[in-house]
């Protein structure tokens, strides 16, 4: 379980995130939504300990994450960020193997190689294992990076929940790859012992895939709950300044139409 206790973060005198209280349970897909500049990415960076909160604290399994060592944290917490560019000819296999770096010393063990092979099969990138990363298309790069990030937390960690962050992972994907990607994420969540927290822009994708939504506005939590609770005309108007028509998707969930 991941908990934010009254966390805040400021640059100069301006708070980018303030007074955020939230609990993220394992086995559910938590998606954070909000307008540009609402503090979504900052919140993810605070929860993943890339940034240290100015106020409050972040707990993983009831323990203050500030006290974890870098290596221990890296063995159970992984973060997928937006498009990653590399200027050097690294093979796809080596990029995926980087996910295992926190787990081995100088050389990967048989176990690490096994995990890399499994993850590459899961993301259907086995065929490009020996290709050079910079030559891949945007969508292929994103799949390889998701494979790398999952390789990092592929196996359960004794005594801890694993934590996976997805910071706007859909940015450079076309619609088919977006849906494929979200399905893979949902499969991952089913493992049950993993806390999965993501940031997405597309509200309908969020409504379709999220178990819980967290709506941010100006660095504060505006609403939290299921998509039916959060995606109300009033909330959307307050957070995005646009009027939605709320309907029901063919499958049964909430669907938004914008004029």
């Amino acid at each position, binding site marked *: 379980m991941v908990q934010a206790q009254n966390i805040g973060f400021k640059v100069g005198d301006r708070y980018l995130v303030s007074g955020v209280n939230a609990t993220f349970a394992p086995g559910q897909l938590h998606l954070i939504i909000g307008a540009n500049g609402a503090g979504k990415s900052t919140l993810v960076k605070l929860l993943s300990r*890339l940034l240290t909160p100015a106020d409050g604290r972040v707990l993983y399994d009831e323990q203050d994450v500030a006290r974890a060592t870098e290596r221990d944290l*890296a063995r159970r*917490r992984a973060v997928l960020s937006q498009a*990653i560019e590399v*200027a*050097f*000819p690294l093979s796809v296999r080596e990029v995926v193997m*980087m996910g295992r*770096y926190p787990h081995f010393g*100088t050389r990967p063990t048989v176990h690490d190689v096994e995990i890399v092979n499994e993850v590459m099969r899961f993301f259907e990138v086995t065929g490009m294992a020996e290709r050079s990363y910079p030559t891949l298309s945007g969508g292929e790069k994103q799949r390889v990076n998701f494979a790398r990030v999952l390789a990092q937390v592929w196996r359960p960690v004794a005594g801890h929940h694993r934590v996976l962050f997805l910071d706007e992972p859909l940015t450079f994907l076309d619609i088919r790859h977006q849906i494929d990607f979200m399905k893979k994420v949902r499969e991952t969540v089913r493992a049950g012992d993993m806390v999965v927290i993501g940031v997405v822009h597309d509200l309908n994708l969020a409504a379709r895939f999220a178990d819980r939504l967290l709506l941010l506005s100006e660095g504060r939590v505006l609403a939290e709950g299921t998509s039916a609770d959060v995606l109300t005309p009033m909330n959307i108007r307050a957070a995005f300044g646009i009027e939605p028509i709320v309907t029901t998707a063919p499958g049964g969930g909430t669907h938004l139409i914008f004029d």
Partner: protein
Amino acid sequence: MKASRTTGLLLALTALMIATVLASIRFGAIDFPLHQMWSSTRAVLAGRTPDTLDGRIFTELRLPRAILCVFVGASLGVGGTLMQALFRNPIVEPGLVGTSSGAAFGASLYFVLGTVLHVEQAAWTLPAAACAGGILSTWMVFALAESGGDRRASIVMLLLTGLAVNALFLSGIGFLSYIARDPQARSIVFWNLGTLSGATWRSVAIVGAVTTLGTLASLVYAKQLNALMIGEEEATYLGVNVRRLKWIVLAINVAIVAVATAFTGVISFVGLIVPHILRMLRGADNRFLIIASAIFGGTLLSLADLIARVALRPAELPIGIVTSVVGVPVFLSLLRRRQYVF
């Protein structure tokens, strides 16, 4: 399977290095026949001074020069690999970002002022002065090139700032050479263009020790440098303390490059070409690149030194001219590749 291919390549590179060094010992202003090379080397190993003039040229000039050349080349190659991984950019090089000219300035300042101020001459004083100069100039380039918001120095800013800082330190060296009275100061040409003609067994020992230690130390950080290639944030998420890594690697790099420069002057482009060629052979894994660039850097500089000595025999070219003739086209072709422009 992959590990054995890497090992094979490293063995091939080592064989190439040995062959180049043997050629570099054999040929020069005077060519030494193989039997004489052998008997003189045996004399050195036994601690005797050869009695013939040729023998003494061999053991006191040719041999230390060839070995110094290998260590200096290794330090420039490893320095290039470290800088490129650290700044995530394949066109960074110790000569371009000011490290070499700063080190040369520190060393020449020591030569000129040390005599005037009667500074005690110990084995560590010259390398320390060169390191101080190298740290100062490298820090200046990166502090000036890092523009406000974006923490990563853009490559255009880096190159232009490097150009300016290089010009500043080279003119400083020019001034020192100009005011210096003869014996204490080396010539401007020495510092600007680089030469290995001053090689002694003492310089071999100092450069050899620093380069070997620096290379071994960098290997400890090879895996973390790999992680850094995909980005600072990503490396942090993989458990790397990026701030600490940057300082350590920059320190190693400045130490090995500055100490080598203190004894040879500025030799450009080796640190650029060596990692570039090796990446084409075997990809960008730093665990391979660091070892290979030490071996191949030594090879390439030995070859350049051999060319410098035999091209205009019995006269000698500054080695920096040879490395620039080869290095500039490689540098320009790198600049023209879109993927390398940030």
